[in-house]
């Protein structure tokens, strides 16, 4: 009796072992979980699902579960929570500026430590350098650019004609922005403004817009170790003064803060002739503009400039070497020139590497719709988005400083000096 039981047990166990071993080889050599955010909403989840399905066809040995995780903030919270719960994802798309937070949590691994072959090392260098800035620190690559954007200037050509300006000559520098902005303001008989010249949004992501102004004035906002900010440097103060004066002194822009969420509507209804906004709005503006509009690079002060924005691929530290290899294979596949071109056309995000713009698809698209090339051409002047240790706090310090100046509560020197003082206190222990 006992013997029989033992035999049965043995048979059962060996069957289990066989079954497990068999299913393991048949299904996938590696199974990966990836969180990804969608910041602009809409059918992007389908685009990602289709890309992943195509990947499975070419790599049947790797299974990727792509999980939509809300906005950038949600994606970071979910990925870090999964990490703490012991069921971590192996890779994720997260905000490019989350890098220091992720390094401090010891959550991610540098790509330099994973790549082995010469071809893989070359791949790390195949992206636009300005898009790599937010993914590099401690002279290592931690994030691979994926869904990335910049700020561009949208302008209403009809309004330019109406104001007697050449619709093919958008403002090239700050002086022109101010003077043309003033000229574009239209008032009714009783002196009420019917159309503003310029609107630069100052809620939601004021630090991002400000990053463009400071770069144009020749000054970055932080160092590339993420432990020093330059909020009180004279060029930064001058940039904020210029932003404020566009409203209070020049009268080209409404004073007070300008709402990020409704700005596109303002532009589409002709309430402002020029707006600065993310390239992510290009498709939406193209679809709903009832007038002739143009897209141009942001104007220059000492030089041109814009921060980049958007999400990068990260690989988590709690992974086996096989999983890291598989994740690398997947990321390399997703960032191939062809895929990058498809992704860029479907979403409006920038093609992250120069050779993507040499693919037939993107060449044709850019010929049909030249504004799509503005963001690319502007990339050579781009810089990193504000990102430091304690990045949420530091960002809010700058946001509050900008808003207090635009609403007239503080002077630029005072507000930025305070912000710098507090940022120094937060960042001192990372130096």
């Amino acid at each position, binding site marked *: 009796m006992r013997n029989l039981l033992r035999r049965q047990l043995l048979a059962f166990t060996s069957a289990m072992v066989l079954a497990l071993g068999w299913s393991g080889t048949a299904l996938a050599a590696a199974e990966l979980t990836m969180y990804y955010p969608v910041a602009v909403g809409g059918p992007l989840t389908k685009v990602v699902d289709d890309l992943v399905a195509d990947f499975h066809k070419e790599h049947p040995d790797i299974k990727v579960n792509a999980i939509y995780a809300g906005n950038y*903030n949600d994606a970071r*919270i979910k990925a870090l929570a999964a990490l703490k719960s012991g069921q971590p994802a192996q890779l994720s798309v997260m905000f490019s500026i989350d890098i220091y*937070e992720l390094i*401090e*949590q*010891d*959550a991610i691994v540098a790509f330099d430590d994973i790549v082995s072959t010469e071809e893989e090392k070359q791949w790390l260098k195949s992206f636009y350098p300005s898009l790599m800035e937010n993914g590099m620190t401690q002279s290592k690559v931690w994030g691979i650019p994926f869904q990335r954007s910049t700020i561009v200037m949208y302008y209403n050509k009809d309004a330019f004609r109406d104001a007697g300006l050449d619709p093919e000559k958008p403002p090239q520098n700050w002086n022109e922005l101010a003077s043309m902005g003033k000229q574009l303001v239209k008032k009714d008989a*009783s*002196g*009420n*403004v019917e159309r*503003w010249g310029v609107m630069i949004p*100052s*809620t*939601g992501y004021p630090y991002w817009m400000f990053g463009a102004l400071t770069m144009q004035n020749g000054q970055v906002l932080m160092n590339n170790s993420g432990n020093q900010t330059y909020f009180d440097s004279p060029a930064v103060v001058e940039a904020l003064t210029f932003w404020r004066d566009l409203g209070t002194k020049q009268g080209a822009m*409404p*004073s*007070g*803060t*300008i*709402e990020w*969420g*409704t700005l596109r*509507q*303002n532009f589409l*209804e002709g*309430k402002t002739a020029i707006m600065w906004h993310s390239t992510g709005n290009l498709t939406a503006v193209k679809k709903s503009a009832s007038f002739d509009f143009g897209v141009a690079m942001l104007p220059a002060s000492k030089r041109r400039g814009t921060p980049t924005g958007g999400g990068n691929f990260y690989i988590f530290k709690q992974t086996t070497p096989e999983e890291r290899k598989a994740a690398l294979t997947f990321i390399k596949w997703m960032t191939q020139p062809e895929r990058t071109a498809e992704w860029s056309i479907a979403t409006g995000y920038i093609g992250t590497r120069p050779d993507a713009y040499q693919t037939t698809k993107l060449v044709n698209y850019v010929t049909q719709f030249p504004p799509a090339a503005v963001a690319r051409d502007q990339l050579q002047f781009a810089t990193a988005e504000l990102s430091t240790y*304690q990045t*949420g*706090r530091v960002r*809010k310090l700058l*946001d*509050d400083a900008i*808003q*207090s100046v*635009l*609403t007239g*509560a503080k002077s630029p020197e005072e507000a930025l000096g305070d912000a710098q003082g507090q940022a120094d206190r937060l960042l001192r222990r990372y130096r």
Partner: protein
Amino acid sequence: MISSSTRTQVYGWLLLTPAAILLIAFTHYPTVATLAKSFFSTGTVTRPTKFVGAENYALMVTDEVFWKVVDNNIWYAIGTIPASIAIAILMALWVNSSISARGLVRMAYFTPTVLPMIAVANVWLFFYTPDIGLIDQVLGLFGIPGHNWLGDPDTVLGCIIVMTIWKEAGFFMIFYLAALQSLPPELNEAARIEGASRWYYFRRVTFPLLMPTTLFVLINAFINSFKLVDHLFILTKGGPDNASSLLLYYIYEVAFSFFDESYAATLTVVLLGVLAIISVGQFVLLDKRIHYR
């Protein structure tokens, strides 16, 4: 043999258990854990959590943003509570009298309550938008120039208060309406025979009899003024320069944008303390002045 009194005891505890488990797991334990956490530092992998005593509280006292949001929250409470209660009573009296299309009016007053706060905020965002918004368009008809309602620190909190009153008054109206319908009609008849004016009747009869409802509504309104922050995510994100930020929104920012769990716990303890004190105070003070039947 188990005595019958023991059995009753066990029986009683068994009945309590499901509720007790839920309360302990989701209310009492988090409260205690929050209190405990407020005495520790926020840990990262490279810097583990350690006991820091009252350091978080000391930080809070010197935190300008904290005092700003407390100040805002007080004004927000003062702005929303009395106004929404007064409007709720007026609306309840109005729809309790015999007017035509009473059902329709009641429904209209109640509609804002059933709408999700996020949806409401999205609608009001376009009301308040400068130049193209509803408010500026209506003002424009009278030749009044547009105003940057949400972009001006002087008007932003007022805008939020108005929207909250609009959202809340209908909800409170329902309670007053129920209370009014339970008042015996003889009182009104007697008052009329005595020749009391309608205002006198309201002041000396209706309002005192509504006091239990008022207490209930008051507590709810108070809690809501600290609890409702959904609209800030859409309307202002607390800006400009924290001019419209409220305590709970600030807690959210600290916890999920700054990832400073300990400081968020500290702020939460303060919020819990304030709410507890106010609730107890309201029960003790107002209980004496209420006619329970």
